[in-house]
């Protein structure tokens, strides 16, 4: 592994002034701050415990996957208090987990995992997040780095035209009620049925790109209005589409199984369920917030609003979540088709048609899974909020072609450094309900990053590194610059050291499309 790039400790976020571009006002009104710092005990080189007696109401310990370097940044971060808060959820088992890319979220930390009893536990929409089934898809093709760098400008321009990005972006078609119902039910298969992909794409997508148990009636009219025009769009913020090249093979068996090789060109797509998913979460958070008193649920953070599994509120949310998840899979499928089209136009039809899916994985989802707890196998509701499933070799839910090595795990870094592809390892099943990190994780707030890079032309700096970037707001690229993120190498080191994953390959960006 490459040595970690040196950076000083991050500024304590709470002490920072307001956005320099906007008006500073008197401090936050006196408010209950539910995510104050907590006690920490180091377990070993890769894990830290937050004892359950740290805070009233904790039903289990918190467990943070981090080494000393990452923990130096985390100690005063509200994320750790949020890990403790999640530990108060009714029916939570094992521990409230934090992956090594953990950072301050709302309710759940980003990078949080929590498993609750299917019988007697709760579902919390905040444990999935507003962007339901935000996830990552990796495509591979037969090109090498040199093939792309020769035409990087044209490739960037055409991808930017072909995949709508940014605020107000609309997809190529408006989906009416009947079509949306079809997307909700069939997910990625909806797109494949319309010629926008192949059956192989479905085989290599988590849940085969189609979550069961949807109910279109559970998706509000407002959610449909928000999402009806957005299928095939990338979104904005930290969503991206990147053309990358493998610059290091870390596990030759894994690379062979995933059909990845040194210098090979791949495409990484990061996006989710767009406004439709956001509205689903909002709708059902409000419903659970209203119902909390009726179920006798008291929580340290209102954003942890939840309902017991099996109740109407929980059932309604799960059905709507599944529908939104399917929308996201269809979204990434439609975008993949657009990418294949661009590659076909530029490099020849064969290249586009031969662009194959490696895997598509979600990092904001809740799933009913069986895991061993206390020596017994039981049904759990596993919440992954900024965390990825990581199943080891031999697991029946791993696609047959990968069952010998494990489920691919896609770990995007930042646009200036690296991304990784790994496979799940047995330690994930033993320690984290089959879960691992989802990316680099933010380290600086957006305005802190902007302030650090004031006057810097981020796009020009990336170009000097051989990275061609296109964005709707190039002036805001600083918010997504490398220094805003943890070093993904450090994050992957911890996940691997703890036995959650086995790294397979490292990739470097060549072309970056940002919303």
């Amino acid at each position, binding site marked *: 592994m490459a040595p970690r790039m040196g950076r000083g400790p991050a500024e304590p976020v709470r002490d920072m*002034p307001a956005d320099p571009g906007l008006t500073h*006002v008197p401090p936050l009104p006196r408010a209950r*701050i539910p995510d104050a710092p907590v006690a920490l005990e180091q377990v070993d080189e890769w894990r830290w415990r937050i004892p359950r007696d740290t805070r009233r109401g904790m039903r289990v310990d918190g467990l943070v996957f981090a080494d000393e370097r990452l923990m130096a940044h985390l100690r005063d971060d509200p994320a750790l208090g949020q890990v403790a808060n999640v530990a108060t959820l009714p029916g939570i088992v094992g521990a409230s987990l934090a992956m090594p890319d953990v950072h301050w*979220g709302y309710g759940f930390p980003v990078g949080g995992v929590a498993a609750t009893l299917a019988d007697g536990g709760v579902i919390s929409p905040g444990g999935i*997040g507003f962007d339901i089934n935000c996830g990552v898809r990796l495509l591979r093709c037969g090109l090498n780095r040199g093939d792309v760098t020769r035409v990087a400008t044209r490739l960037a321009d055409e991808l930017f035209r072909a995949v709508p990005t940014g605020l107000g972006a609309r997809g190529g078609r408006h989906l009416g009620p009947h079509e949306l119902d079809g997307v909700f039910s069939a997910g990625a298969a909806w797109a494949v049925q319309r010629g926008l992909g192949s059956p192989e794409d479905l085989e290599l997508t988590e849940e085969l790109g189609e979550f069961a148990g949807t109910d279109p009636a559970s998706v509000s009219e407002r959610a449909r209005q928000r999402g009806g025009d957005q299928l095939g769009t990338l979104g904005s913020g930290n969503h991206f589409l990147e053309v990358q090249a493998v610059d290091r093979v870390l596990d030759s068996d894994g690379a062979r199984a995933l059909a990845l090789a040194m210098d090979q060109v791949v495409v990484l797509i990061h996006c989710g369920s767009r406004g439709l998913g956001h509205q689903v979460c909002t709708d059902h958070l*409000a419903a659970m917030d209203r119902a909390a008193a009726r179920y006798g649920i008291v929580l340290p953070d*209102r954003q942890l609003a939840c309902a017991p599994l099996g109740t109407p509120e929980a059932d309604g949310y799960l059905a709507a979540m599944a529908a939104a998840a399917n929308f996201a899979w269809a979204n990434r499928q439609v975008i993949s088709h657009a990418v294949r089209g661009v590659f076909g136009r530029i490099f020849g039809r064969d290249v586009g048609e031969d662009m194959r899916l490696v895997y598509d994985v979600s990092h904001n989802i809740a799933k009913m899974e069986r895991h061993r707890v206390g020596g017994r196998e039981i049904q759990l509701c596993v919440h992954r909020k900024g965390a990825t499933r990581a199943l080891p070799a031999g697991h029946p839910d791993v696609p047959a072609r990968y069952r010998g090595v494990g489920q691919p795990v896609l770990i995007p870094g930042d646009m200036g450094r690296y991304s990784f592809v790994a496979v799940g390892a047995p330690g994930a099943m033993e320690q984290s309900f089959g879960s691992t990190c989802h990316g680099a994780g933010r380290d600086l707030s957006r305005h802190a990053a902007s302030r650090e890079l004031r006057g810097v032309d981020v796009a020009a700096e990336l170009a000097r590194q051989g990275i061609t970037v296109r964005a709707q707001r190039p002036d805001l690229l600083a918010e997504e610059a490398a220094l805003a993120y943890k070093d993904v190498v450090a994050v992957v080191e911890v996940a691997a050291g703890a036995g959650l994953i086995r790294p397979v390959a490292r990739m470097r960006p060549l072309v970056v499309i940002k919303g």
Partner: protein
Amino acid sequence: MVHRGRSHGYLPHTADAGLVARAPTLAGLFEEAALALAELAADNPGLEGAPVPAGPLNAGDLGGLAFAWLNELIGLAESAGQALVGATVTRLDRAGDGWIVEGRALLAPWGEAGLQGRRHVKAVTFHRLVVEEGRAGFALAAYVDL
């Protein structure tokens, strides 16, 4: 900027953002919070926007009402494919054991007169959501998902 005794600003968050609004009245507070939300999402050259009905919305407490109000504005704007540039409150009262708010979202088309998107506001969260009354009026703080 302080105008008519109202003001708003922002709070840092690692991946997202917080907003703070202050006003002498509750209705003014909800309008000011809407303005804070709008300025977070878009660079507005001064467009006043066209009114679209917002609400009526009910909630059991003021925090829940603020959650409902601000998310309604977000939803209206995105459904219309336009930018939120502000809002007006026509009614904010107690209703039974809770509260009710009704008003108008002010929307403008993206690109009009240089109106540009800045950040995609997905939703307002319940995290650290507070509506408080003090000596000088009311204050609201909320964190939004970007």
